[in-house]
């Protein structure tokens, strides 16, 4: 139980303001003061989740709201440590580089003949000095862009990795390696140093990737309701994280390593019928139907550590958002927790989750 207590399972803040589902959350680079959210309302919001008052629910500080022409945001963490930049990928087939302070786009990659021909699903910084922007998209390609090149660098990628047979869903970069997960159930590791591309096969579409710190293992979430910790050296599966009630077969649900790589945390797509029936045992009250859930496993043992309820966000006026369908009835909504991020790249004591509720919930200790 000591581990359980250490797992941050108390919702410390709710970050409101989005008018649509959250597609991506990320902490700013260390020390992770800010949280960036990319939402379906085509805007990126920057929050400071640290509570300024004692009430811990609705106190958020919206520092900046960045609106982009993208219609569907997939925003990835601003891993750039030195400069306050972030890059976003979106449904308009382009990758943007932003200056956070001025909320202006500084660079645009793609949206030309040489850019992605489909929606961009994931982006990552890479290379020495974060001089590369790597993006993977629905057009089954991973494109590497030179962020340093002036002028024409945005129109033409340095390299196009077109080995994937289906949409590229997740990217991870470590050192000189690019790891790309694809819907065709493959995880391809491109080692620039050795010039080898290692392809690992998974039984289902891979939707989530999370490299460990030492890049020796990678956490692979696939649509067969299993999260696997893979040994990257020989492709062996070190541990499989699953639960009878946890299902992930349809939606992209992110899974990350967290708590100094002690936990595996994943969202829940809430499709299992028992999603609302159970849930009172470990930390979740389960009073609200279709409340989002976050699952956490112990990395080493593979045991379920925690199952947290992600409450529906409360809007400013104190009411829940109600979505009315075309038939005039209130739509049944499910709070699918699709994206989550751990503070300081998995070493902090906080993590935040976002989903279809449009509210980012920050879980912390205490």
């Amino acid at each position: 139980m000591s581990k359980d207590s250490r797992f941050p399972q108390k919702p410390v803040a709710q970050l409101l303001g989005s008018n649509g589902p959250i597609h991506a959350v990320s902490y700013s680079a260390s020390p992770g003061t800010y949280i960036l959210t990319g939402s379906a309302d085509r805007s990126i919001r920057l929050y400071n989740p640290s509570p300024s008052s004692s009430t811990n629910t609705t106190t958020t500080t919206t520092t900046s709201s960045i609106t982009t022409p993208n219609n569907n945001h997939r925003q990835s963490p601003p891993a750039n440590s030195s400069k306050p930049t972030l890059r976003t990928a979106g449904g308009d087939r382009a990758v943007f580089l932003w200056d956070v302070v001025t909320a202006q786009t500084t660079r645009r990659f793609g949206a030309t003949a040489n850019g992605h021909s489909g929606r961009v699903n994931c982006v990552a910084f890479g290379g020495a000095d974060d001089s590369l922007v790597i993006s993977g998209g629905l057009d089954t390609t991973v494109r590497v862009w030179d962020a340093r090149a002036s002028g024409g660098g945005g129109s033409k990628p340095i390299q196009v990795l077109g080995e994937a047979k289906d949409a590229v869903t997740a990217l991870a970069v470590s050192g000189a390696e690019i790891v790309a997960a694809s819907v065709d159930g493959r995880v391809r590791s491109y080692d620039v140093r050795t010039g080898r591309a290692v392809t690992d096969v998974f039984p289902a579409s891979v939707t989530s990737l999370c490299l460990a710190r030492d890049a020796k293992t990678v956490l692979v979430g696939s649509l067969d309701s299993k999260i696997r910790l893979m040994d990257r050296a020989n492709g062996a599966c070190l541990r499989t994280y699953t639960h009878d009630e946890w299902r992930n077969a349809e939606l992209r649900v992110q899974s990350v390593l967290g708590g100094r790589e002690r936990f595996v945390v994943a969202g829940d797509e809430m499709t299992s019928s028992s999603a609302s029936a159970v849930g009172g045992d470990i930390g979740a009250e389960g009073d609200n139907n279709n409340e989002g859930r976050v699952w956490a496993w112990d990395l080493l043992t593979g045991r379920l550590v925690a199952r947290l309820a992600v409450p529906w966000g409360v809007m400013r006026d104190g009411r829940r958002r109600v979505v009315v369908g075309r038939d005039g009835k209130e739509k049944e909504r499910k709070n699918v927790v699709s994206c989550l991020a751990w503070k300081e790249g998995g070493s902090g004591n906080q993590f935040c989750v976002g989903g279809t509720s449009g509210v980012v919930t920050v879980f912390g200790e205490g």
Partner: protein
Amino acid sequence: MSIKRSRATYEADLAAQQSPYVVFGTALPPLDPEVRDDGSYVPVWKQEVRDERGRKRLHGAFTGGFSAGYFNTVGSKEGWTPSTFVSSRTNRRKDAPNAEQQRPEDFMDEEDLAELEESRKIQTNAAFAGPGSTEDAVSQASGLMGLFRIEGETMGAKLLKKMGWREGQGIGPKVRRSARLELQGSAAEKGDTFLFAPDNVPMISLTRKTDHRGLGYGGQSRLTSIGHSTRGGSAANSDDEDDEENMGGFGRPSFSLAMGRKKGKDTNKSGIGIGILNDTRSDDEDPYEIGPRISYNKVIGGDRKKKKASIATNPSLKTKPVFRSKKSVLGKVALGVRRCHDGRLPLDGFVFGKEADSLTSEVNSQGKYPPPRIPPDWKSSKIPKSQTDSKEYVSTADAAKASTLNPKARAALLGEKELPGKSVFDFMSAAARERLVAATGKADLPAARGEIPAGYALTEAERLRELHKQVPMLGKDAAIAALSRGAGGGAPYADDEDKRARYRAYLEYQAGFKPALPPKPAQTSTEDWLREINEFFNCARIFKPMTGLMASRFTTSSSALNSTTSTRGEPGERDLVTKPPPKREDPAEEAARLGMFGSMTRTVAEFHPTRLLCKRFNVKPPANVQTEENTGRARTSAPTAPFDADEEGSSAVPRDLLALEFGVSSSASDGSTKDMNSLGGNMSPAVQTAEKPSIDSSKNEALEAMRAGDDVFKAIFGDSDDDDE
């Protein structure tokens, strides 16, 4: 009215005034006093012209005058826009393949188009070829008959004209006769004969009796019987009087000459029923004429003369006033100049008969000349058919329907030999018949006998061969493999010993150990047997032992599967068997599904990061990329030395080909190959295959100008074990 009424009272008043009879609902508002809706005449200047949308289109001159189209433009918002200018110098409009042909409709507005539509009428393009006629008959065509009668020439007339016939002529061989120049005296006296076309014979048109009057009744004609008879007998008739009598009078009107001109006259004759003062459209008839009309030519010759088409061979002669001597006319009449309907004179000794006049009929009525008496025992040879026809008419189809005979009975009636064939059902199996019954819903189909036609009857051996043909052939190797696997345990059908034995027998047969298939068990049907054989076939294909890596990987997994699944054999495999043979799956995916992550699921391929990518990642480009760099450098820096050692690795084979092709001195090539060998013969095949001489567009030439050090070449070419110093 100073007192203000409430709205309710006002409305009540209004209702009472305007529509006192409205009980339910709300009365229509009173008519606008400005508008007259009583249909009375409104002068033109008060009428308002509005278009179909109710807009005023005609204004006073000071308020815009006439407005049309789209806000006083023509048609569209842009108004009239000229078509795009096309220079005709290079692009001739008339040469254009689809040159726009402007039609009148293009310049019409909706009203004009509507008018155009109205003006269209249905009519026949050319007249139909109905009853043939020449031009003079066309005038008769009127009304509906015009639809069926051709106007102009019929095909027959055209043909005749081609053969030399002219209008007005008769048909037939030419006739030699003297010319009739109407001046009878002179022509006849000459005695010269010429060949003439025969005279035209007018068509006989039998007048049909449409009224209900008695035969020969000429009620509409004048009461001129006496005068007629006298005139008929007298020689004082002119020619056309004579003709008139033939037409409408008593004198045998059974047929008449088809001259339209005369029919018109016929109707003019007023009979008893017409009052004296009734206007019968003719002015020259004296209504008060009493007694026999003595008609005479009011004009000498010319128009009143009978137009004899057959005679008028020379049309120019017709117009001339011609003197006709009374003598010749009289002579003609005396000769009985009436001709038969074919234009000829009656035969010698015959005269044209006339219907008995009243006098002779009176004589007949007195019984003076009774008709011959029919002998009492005379019997007509013609048998009236009325007896047989008196029965009610039955059409053939009805009769056929009423018949109760079936084809066989009819055949028997007709004495036909019975066909040797059999029904389809005779050859049908019972199962097929059942299907047919189910499909058609008819339960009374003939019984299926399942016979086999004589020519197709198979002997037992043939049938067996036929059956064995349908047995799927398993490869010998596969059969042996499956057998060996079965011997090692874990063979299928562990729960069914008989089936297993059959399976083994099948495999042994396929492997060639046994000459024949095991005989089909008597109680199983052929279909079941074949199904089982097919199942064996699929099973054997699946159950053959895997080779190499897969075999080592799957020995445990299959046993695990065996243990985890139920007791009856291997249902998983059974499911596979019943399904169509699954498409070959990627073993890696299969391994991944089974959780065998590792070398099974891992494939390593070459990857060629671009130089810029390596630079940005701050790593040395991998070996395969460096080779590319070298080749690129060699191409740029030493194009004159094509057999530079740098290029060996990348283009060894093409260079040899080149040497062969161009006859490069063998020493050079030998040297270079030696060079290559000395540098390193055993390049890794992966590297060799990867080195495609492709130019990377993203390569920076300035960065690559620096020549790679010797260690690079060593790294590529000189890392062999034997050459290692």
